[in-house]
């Protein structure tokens, strides 16, 4: 068993690194805060360091208890500047001989002179250190958890004075260790001050209290970021979610859940995910379709999705979903000529105080991206790059795959990916489409134009030829009929205007056009004859009828002339016109019939 001790770090100026602890650093005053109000243990220590040694100190060592170290999700240290400016320290993991636990070495921005003092703030977040006890509860019961830690700051340096303040989630506390007679107020417990604590001291702290905050854990998340140079970045997160609080024992009663407000108080009904402000086309679904119980709220600086799993999550229950959205690339993608840089969050907000057990990030770059270089904000393990094929891809898009375990909110930081991309490649996909359509149309053209039948059918060929000729004949004949109608109009106009010139010119054009048309038809007729079709006779007949028709037209024309000239009376003209038009009617219908027969 472990001898206890809350989290902690110590600063030591360590000239020779590692185990040289007697270098004179002392924790003058330590204020620890243990925030246990959520399902995380967030431990902050503000340390007043003094160099009591003789030499200048360049770095200090932070220590974590062996019991807590495996649960460490995040550690960060900063120096409190004079001007209230915090300066982050870079941490490097080291080992100390003969001591258990985890150690980090921090380089100080400027070396600490003997006798000088420094204020350092160390922030750590631990996941899965609050253990539900009892581990199984019914729907009506409250969730109680146990925290085990260290009363003292775990440090390689001696401590002169320290206080520890524990923030809890509720007033209800079953039990807590009473070292140094702590004072308990509403939702917090104050320990200390403890004086002159030797280095590496541990004393078991144990707090058993009620905590109904959602114990949500993302057991695994795969974040896929697909970059398109056409202006879009698609983000998709596949999330496995689990309630890691006390297991639900016995039945789940919907009646109680709906009627009693304190029923299932530790269960998770919904939570909020904050997406970037420019997120569009948000979807929230799982294997069996859209999850209809969600709401989207577009705010000025973000898009909030109220994620409600299909069912309330009780202890031990899990769910799985996919959330995805599109982002405009101009906000995240920068370029200088062929050089591109993508700056995006490696992991984004899912819910407040999130815990991610396992993260996989897949960054899909455009096809043809080269010289890829990644700058991560914290170490992350890269896997073998993959290739991804999607719409219109030919040789695949490079995919960067990276994984990391145990992440919390503090890990929401930007990753920068640099790569080279030749802009000509942008044309590749449109050209591909154009090419495909070209080939398609070309094939159709070839297929339609060429004859692929294995047997020749001369009869069919002749038939087709004849059909095309008859079609031409039809149009010509119709045109000719049109000419007559036109002539009628001319005659009518003449009757009113008595303009002989117009009539004559109309007649001339009629004659001329009629001659060419008739000649054309005769030529076609001979061709028909050559094909051996009996339609030629019919065309001949049409020609005969047509010549009669033309005579009639001419006659009506003459009649009109005579009428205008006053050679015939109006009555007689009307009479003759009637007979003429009757005849014409008859002829036209006969031609029509013949045409129909064609």
């Amino acid at each position, binding site marked *: 068993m472990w001898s206890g001790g809350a989290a902690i770090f110590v600063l030591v100026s360590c000239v020779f690194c590692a185990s040289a602890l007697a270098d004179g650093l002392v924790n003058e005053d330590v204020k620890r805060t243990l925030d246990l109000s959520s399902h995380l243990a967030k431990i902050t220590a503000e340390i007043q360091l003094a160099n009591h040694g003789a030499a200048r100190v360049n770095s200090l060592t932070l220590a974590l208890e062996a019991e807590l170290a495996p649960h460490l999700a995040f550690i960060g240290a900063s120096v409190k500047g004079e001007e209230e400016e915090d300066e982050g320290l870079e941490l490097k993991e080291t080992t100390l001989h003969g001591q258990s636990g985890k150690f980090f070495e921090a380089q100080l921005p400027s070396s600490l002179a003997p006798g000088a003092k420094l204020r350092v703030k160390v922030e750590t977040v631990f996941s899965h250190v609050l253990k539900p006890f009892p581990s199984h509860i019914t729907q009506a019961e409250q969730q109680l958890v146990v925290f085990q830690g260290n009363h003292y700051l775990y440090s390689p340096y001696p401590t002169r004075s320290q206080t520890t303040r524990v923030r809890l989630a509720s007033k209800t506390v079953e039990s807590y260790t009473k070292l140094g007679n702590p004072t308990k107020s509403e939702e917090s417990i104050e320990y200390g001050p403890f004086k002159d604590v030797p280095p590496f001291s541990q004393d078991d702290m144990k707090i058993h209290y009620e905590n109904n905050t959602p114990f949500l854990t993302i057991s695994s998340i795969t974040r896929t970021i697909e970059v398109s140079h056409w202006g879009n970045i698609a983000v998709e997160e596949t999330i496995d979610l689990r309630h890691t609080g006390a297991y639900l024992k016995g039945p789940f009663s919907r009646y109680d859940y709906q009627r009693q407000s304190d029923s299932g108080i530790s269960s998770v009904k919904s939570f909020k995910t904050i997406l970037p402000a420019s997120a569009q086309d948000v979807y929230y679904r799982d*294997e069996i379709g859209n999850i209809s119980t969600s709401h989207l709220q577009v705010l000025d600086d973000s898009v909030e999705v109220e994620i409600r799993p*299909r069912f309330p999550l009780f202890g031990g229950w899990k769910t799985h979903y996919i959330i995805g959205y599109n982002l405009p690339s101009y906000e995240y993608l920068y370029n200088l000529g062929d050089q591109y840089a993508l700056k995006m969050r490696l992991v984004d907000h899912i819910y407040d105080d999130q815990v991610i057990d396992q993260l996989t990030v897949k960054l899909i770059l455009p096809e043809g991206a080269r010289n890829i270089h990644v700058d991560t904000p914290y170490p992350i393990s890269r896997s073998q790059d993959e290739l991804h*094929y999607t719409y219109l891809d030919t040789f695949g898009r490079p995919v960067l795959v990276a994984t990391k375990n145990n992440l919390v909110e503090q890990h929401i930081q930007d990753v920068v990916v640099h790569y080279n991309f030749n802009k000509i490649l942008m044309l590749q996909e449109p050209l591909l489409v154009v090419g495909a359509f070209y080939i398609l149309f070309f094939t159709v053209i070839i297929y339609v134009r060429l004859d692929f039948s294995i047997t020749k059918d001369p009869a069919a060929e002749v038939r087709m030829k004849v059909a095309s000729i008859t*079609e031409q004949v039809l149009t010509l004949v119709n045109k000719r009929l049109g000419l007559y109608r036109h002539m009628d109009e001319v005659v009518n106009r003449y009757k009113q205007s008595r303009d002989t010139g117009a009539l004559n010119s109309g007649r001339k054009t009629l004659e001329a056009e009629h001659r060419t048309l008739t000649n054309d038809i005769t030529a076609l007729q001979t061709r028909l004859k050559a094909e051996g079709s009996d339609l030629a006779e019919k065309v001949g007949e049409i020609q005969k009828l047509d010549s009669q028709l033309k005579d009639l037209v001419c006659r009506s024309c003459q009649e009109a002339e005579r009428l205008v000239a006053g050679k015939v009376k109006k009555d007689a003209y009307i009479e003759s016109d009637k007979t003429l*038009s009757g005849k014409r*009617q008859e002829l036209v219908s006969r031609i029509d019939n013949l045409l*129909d027969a064609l």
Partner: protein
Amino acid sequence: MAEHHTASDCKHKTSSNAGGSVSGNGRPNSPAGCGGSGGLSGGLTQPAGWQSLLSFTILFLAWLAGFSSRLFAVIRFESIIHEFDPWFNYRSTHHLTTNGFYEFLNWFDERAWYPLGRIVGGTVYPGLMVTAGLIHYILNLLHVTVHIRDVCVFLAPVFSGLTAISTFLLTRELWNQGAGLLAACFIAIVPGYISRSVAGSFDNEGIAIFALQFTYYLWVKSVKTGSVFWAIGCCLSYFYMVSAWGGYVFIINLIPLHVFALLLMQRFSRRLYIAYSTFYIVGLVLSMQIPFVGFQPIRTSEHMAAAGVFALLQAYAFLQYLKDRLTRQEFQTLFFLGVSLAAGVVFLTVIYLTYTGESHLPVMLRYAKIHIPIIASVSEHQPTTWVSFFFDLHILVCTFPAGLWFCIKNINDERVFVALYAISAVYFAGVMVRLMLTLTPVVCMLSAIAFSSVFEHYLGDDMKRENPPAEDSKQDRPEEGLGPNIKSIVTMLMLMLLMMFAVHCTWVTSNAYSSPSVVLASYNHDGSRNILDDFREAYYWLRQNTDEHARVMSWWDYGYQIAGMANRTTLVDNNTWNNSHIALVGKAMSSNESAAYEIMKSLDVDYVLIIFGGVIGYSGDDINKFLWMVRIAEGEHPKDIRESDYFTPQGEFRVDKAGSPTLLNCLMYKMSYYRFGPYTRLDFRTPPGFDRTRNAEIGNKDIRLKHLEEAFTSEHWLVRIYRVKKQENRQALDHKLRNIAAKQKYTSKKVLPSLFH
């Protein structure tokens, strides 16, 4: 949007008709009005080009209209698989795409029919899954990364376009191009077909109607041409149909019927002989390649007609041959000899079959008798009402007899076919609602013929008459004015009918056939929509929060959905092949709790899932289906379950205080109303425990469960899941593989035979 499409579609129908009538007259319509305008473009002077462009456009628009009017559910809800059977099809398609074709053919599904399992590969028509899988495979080969679900959802709408095209082809063969285009437009939007092919309804029928129409087209084509090429095409299409739907039996009976009718009508020809002989032999061999069909085509009675007609056709052809060679006298003797010989053979075969019991007719009857409660319990197996004829076909149901009459009046080989098709389909559609589907295409074709002929008459003549008056002097016009008026009135009326048809189709599609039934929607007073997603809530809970090998007992309706969405083992499902198993589940549901517990223990049940609509007034819940469970259970266990016990002495089925005590204490009742007694909605007009579906205050409010506990209830109480408790006072045993000592095995082998001798 879809409405817009259908409206435009309607317009195109009329224009298509104009095109059709023009082709009928074989005359370009350019001279009509535009007089002597000589400068027409080259395209106009080539009517053939116009015609094909017009046909292409109309078919394309019909496809588009058909596709988009099937998307209501996707737009209103989402791209999701509907109903029950499609979930199984989707699940098997998913299996096919993830595990490959051979793995799919050999798939033994141990998640269904626990503890029996189901040989899926050998008991499905794989056409649908293979089609969807193939499309998915090709798309992925081209790096079009489409999820298989989307392929499945949109398969039926896409195939509706192909159906429209094959209907066009078939109608063109039967009548003319104009009628074909009309028929294509009709089939694209007719509700009778949409009911089975909306987006998400991933069922066999979606592709089978296309295969059916295409097979018929190829058959008509091969009868017309007498070419082996078309006949082989027909066989391949038939093979696809066999692989897709059990309705292929309709084809294999209708085509022989056609041949038989042609023989009776003295219309035997070499073309017919070639077509049918090829079709029968190749089609038979091909159809036997489907594992589920296997040797049925040479064994079962429903395929015998085809064989009989084949033999008859050979005999007929042989006689024809002899007729040319022999004298009349010789021929007559031979004929009588042949006929008596054939009669004898038939007689002996019947005797033999009856004697050996190989005839399947009695077997089928027996089978049906046992299954009657199950078959009858399916709503789509009910006889069709008159209303649903009108509902599904609207004006077409009135006009198609006219088309049939036109066909019979100008009869030829292929019109005999369509007449037979129409008559048989009408008969089947009258027997079962479900078979409305086979009626729909023929109704569309015949109505198109009717409309087309009417338009041809009234629109076509109009132009002819219009021609002379244009040339004539003005005096003649008043005399002829009446004719065109009547014609235009008739035309307008027809167009009105078509327009109303389009509106009706859209309305029916939108209101009746576009609900996924997995997701329910309710509307508030202000028109806003509430989505009730209880089914998926509960199924997903099962999927995520129960043991992977948990066995879920439910009524068979939900078997496919549980397997598809919850991915858990079910006891019975919609493939109702084992009646006694279903009866056992029915018995468990209708017994009291302790008797049910024994059954559930023997079936290794971990969870029981029921549907309860009392809170929101959902009428399709398990209490309303309960009598079927009782009936089916009674069929197998008449001693334990009696239907009369569940009725009040007055013979009513009531859930309130007056209900029969057997009902009020059976497992289904208890599970449905557990903790419902104190439940009240916010309105205080109703007493606590008021069932909104049956409008009654429940009779048994103090329900305690001994062997079960509530595991999950969805938000609106629609789905309730109960956990079957392990037996008390014993340690829960893990289900380990049984280890039978080798010794025992040998002894049992020796002992068993002696027992029987």
